[in-house]
């Protein structure tokens, strides 16, 4: 049986490997060099958690939007012009006083790109992927989030092509805030479910 492992070859520098691969792909007409730059720019600068924050803030101020969001996440998110790759089939998970939701992909790194951008390293790494399904409350505590024992914790393993976004509860003390002010409170981690939006954290600029 053929060994697929690379342990017989010395590992070589990824920077050199991608230079070689990219140059061959371009030479063979399989990749347009301009497309590389455009794609990197989209994901480095144009797509990110501010998209998801707009969705959450809209749901906080508009109960009918919230309803549409929970009924058909993809369609409601698209109302805000947010669509596309790794977000084609969205389901929104509403946190309530009785239920806290948190999302993972134990098998790889599936994540809702149009609403949150590309995932942080910790989300894709072995400790989070292995631990959050078996000891979620301990993992959340490490993020600074304590969940009361009477609150249910639901861990959503993105094992298929549905992508999940947590709709956190609106924090107290935000009555009368504008949508823009509310969106600024919504952290990436609160839409993954590893934290919740806090008024004081936003004020100090901490808490991604």
């Amino acid at each position, binding site marked *: 049986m053929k060994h697929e492992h690379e342990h017989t070859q010395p590992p070589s520098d990824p*920077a050199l490997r991608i230079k070689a691969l990219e140059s061959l792909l371009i030479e063979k007409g399989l990749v347009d060099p301009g497309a590389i730059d455009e794609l990197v720019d989209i994901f480095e600068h144009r797509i990110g958690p501010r998209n998801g924050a707009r969705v959450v803030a809209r749901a906080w101020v508009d109960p009918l939007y919230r309803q549409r969001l929970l009924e058909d996440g993809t369609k409601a998110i698209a109302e805000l012009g947010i669509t596309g790759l790794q977000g084609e089939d969205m389901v929104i998970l509403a946190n309530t006083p009785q239920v806290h939701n948190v999302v993972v992909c134990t098998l790889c790194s599936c994540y809702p790109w149009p609403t949150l951008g590309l995932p942080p390293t910790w989300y894709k790494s072995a400790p989070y992927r292995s631990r959050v399904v078996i000891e979620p409350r301990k993992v959340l505590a490490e993020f600074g989030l304590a969940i009361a024992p009477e609150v249910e914790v639901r861990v959503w*393993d993105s094992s298929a092509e549905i992508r999940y976004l947590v709709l956190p509860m609106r924090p107290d003390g935000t009555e009368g805030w504008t949508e823009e002010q509310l969106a600024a409170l919504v952290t990436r981690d609160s839409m993954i479910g590893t934290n919740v939006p806090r008024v004081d954290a936003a004020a100090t600029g901490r808490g991604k």
Partner: protein
Amino acid sequence: MNGIHDLGGMQGLGPLIREPDEPVFHEEWERRTFACLILTLAGGQYTVDELRHSIERMDPARYLSTPYYEHWLHSAEDLLDKKGVVTREELARRAAEIAARGRD
């Protein structure tokens, strides 16, 4: 497959480490790897399922110890070679040429 990627419930894989205000890409090679993989995927060279399975077949020790985008690089090299689109020989030759240019 019952591979190293199937991590749910495993223990002893280390502490949760989070980088505050982490950049989207840490290195230029990650940007290029991300882009080349997405563009070849969009170009129909493979499906996302094939890419995932290629990563699942990485050497387990390397899977756990290499940076995330090195998994992507592995799968692109593996599948493009298997499909005869860009062979490992071509890659090795080109890498040697680039390295030689760098030394001049």
